């Protein structure tokens, strides 16, 4: 397993948000974590990136215990996150945003990676000199994804990439996620948009108020009566 999370607990003050999460992601897999608003999806991803402290449990990445690693060390080891709400560096140019994505690889030649990101997201090449804050929501999402890819991640964490986007753009973003996966990137996709996420996922987890309540292949989860009732509105 590339990523193994065992018994992860995390709290905001006295309120426990995650009550012991177990999740595994294998090399090359696309795993979806779906659940309602406030279920703990974002908390879980932040804990994986090291910006939200754990109160219990462990995180293993490629066999090594990274539970106590600093965020920058995790990026260096290959965990890269596209945060919820995109979080681009608004006043900085598109190109600067992307170059900062490769911050942990200073000294390495990142021009080739930049070109590869521009190939995946041609719109970013056309806007490379513009400040990121002037991009549309969909373009900012692409920029946030490109920025994360600039670190050459072994594991890409995607937090609600479809949030706040028009349906047409949502489709485009999911196409890109699938394409990245076909290129061999391991992806952990967190989504409220359960149907579309599970449709492209190898496996899925369903999270409810800080607990994993179901796990199966993406296909089986889509056909699961409980999931249908609770998340797919069918």
């Amino acid at each position: 397993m590339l990523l193994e999370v065992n018994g992860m607990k995390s709290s905001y003050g006295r309120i426990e948000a995650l009550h012991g999460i177990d999740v595994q992601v294998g090399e090359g897999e696309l795993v979806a974590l779906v659940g309602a608003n406030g279920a703990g999806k974002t908390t879980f991803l932040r804990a994986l990136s090291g910006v939200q402290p754990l109160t219990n449990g462990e995180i293993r990445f490629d066999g090594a215990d990274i539970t106590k690693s600093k965020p920058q060390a995790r990026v260096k080891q290959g965990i890269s996150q596209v945060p919820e709400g995109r979080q681009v560096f608004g006043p900085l140019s598109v190109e600067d945003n992307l170059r900062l994505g490769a911050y942990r690889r200073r000294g390495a030649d990142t021009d080739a990676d930049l070109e590869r990101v521009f190939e995946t997201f041609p719109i970013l090449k056309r806007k490379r000199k513009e400040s990121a804050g002037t991009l549309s929501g969909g373009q900012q999402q692409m920029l946030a994804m490109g920025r994360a890819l600039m670190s050459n991640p072994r594991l890409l964490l995607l937090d609600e990439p479809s949030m706040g986007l028009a349906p047409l753009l949502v489709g485009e973003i999911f196409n890109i996620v699938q394409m990245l996966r076909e290129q061999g990137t391991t992806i952990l996709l967190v989504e409220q948009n359960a149907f579309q996420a599970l449709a492209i996922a190898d496996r899925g987890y369903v999270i409810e108020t800080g607990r994993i309540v179901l796990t199966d292949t993406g296909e089986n989860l889509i056909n699961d009566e409980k999931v249908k009732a609770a998340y797919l509105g069918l």
Partner: protein
Amino acid sequence: MLGEFIQYLFSGLTSGAIYALVGLGFALIYNASHVINFAQGEFVMLGGMGTVFLAAAGVPLPLAVVVAIIGTACVGFALEKLAVEQTKNASVVTLIIITIGASIVLRGAAQVLFDKQFHTLPAFSGDEPINVLGATITSQTLWVLGITALIVVVLQWFFNRTLLGKAILATSVNPLAAKLVGINVSFVLLLSFGMSAALGAIAGVLITPITSTNFEVGIMLGLKGFSAAILGGLGNPFGAVIGGLILGIVEAFGAGYISSEYKDAMAFIIILLALFFMPSGLFGKKGTERV
């Protein structure tokens, strides 16, 4: 008439450049942490006093200057490491109060470690006055203006051309995203305090031959630098420089043409006017961003 005007102008530009350096220090720390560091003036004092006492102890002047600047930068590091970083999750207001405490400690320490007298340094390249269009300026004035200009250019290059500089900007814009791309945010904070302290110390060294220094000069210089930063738009380094120059020039003309009694009041009148009519300063963020 013209001579008088030029005289005031140069005197204003000189003190304005010093305010600009102090204001830059405020802007750097504010950008990285949203903290207003009220110990900024003490960095200026430490630079000047440190150089004076190292020189008095027999250290050659150029070396004394370098050691004083590096030493002050270390005080900046220490302030961040020992005070600011320890108070995890403290509110910005708490941190600001900590910097006020630090300024009092530094003044007290300087009183004990150095003394309470006024001290001066020899001008860097002699006291020979230079005649410019009927005004008499000292060579030290040119040092102040030249070095300030050089610092502004270097900082501009640092923030616009280097990845580390951009990482500092990115941290000030969005600390969470900065962490997620792997920027060591606590290092950025440490660096900002060190850079601010060094800037303050440089200002202190530059101004000491002109105005002399003692353990309390930091209070007024800190407030003036703060006014410069507010006037220019807090968090905008470029604005702090312009704000500092405007402040210095207004002060000099106010003292020359109105009354020198009100010289110090000018800075505070400007800051009040700025806060009343332009709360975000001349070049402050207006706060438009697409969500």
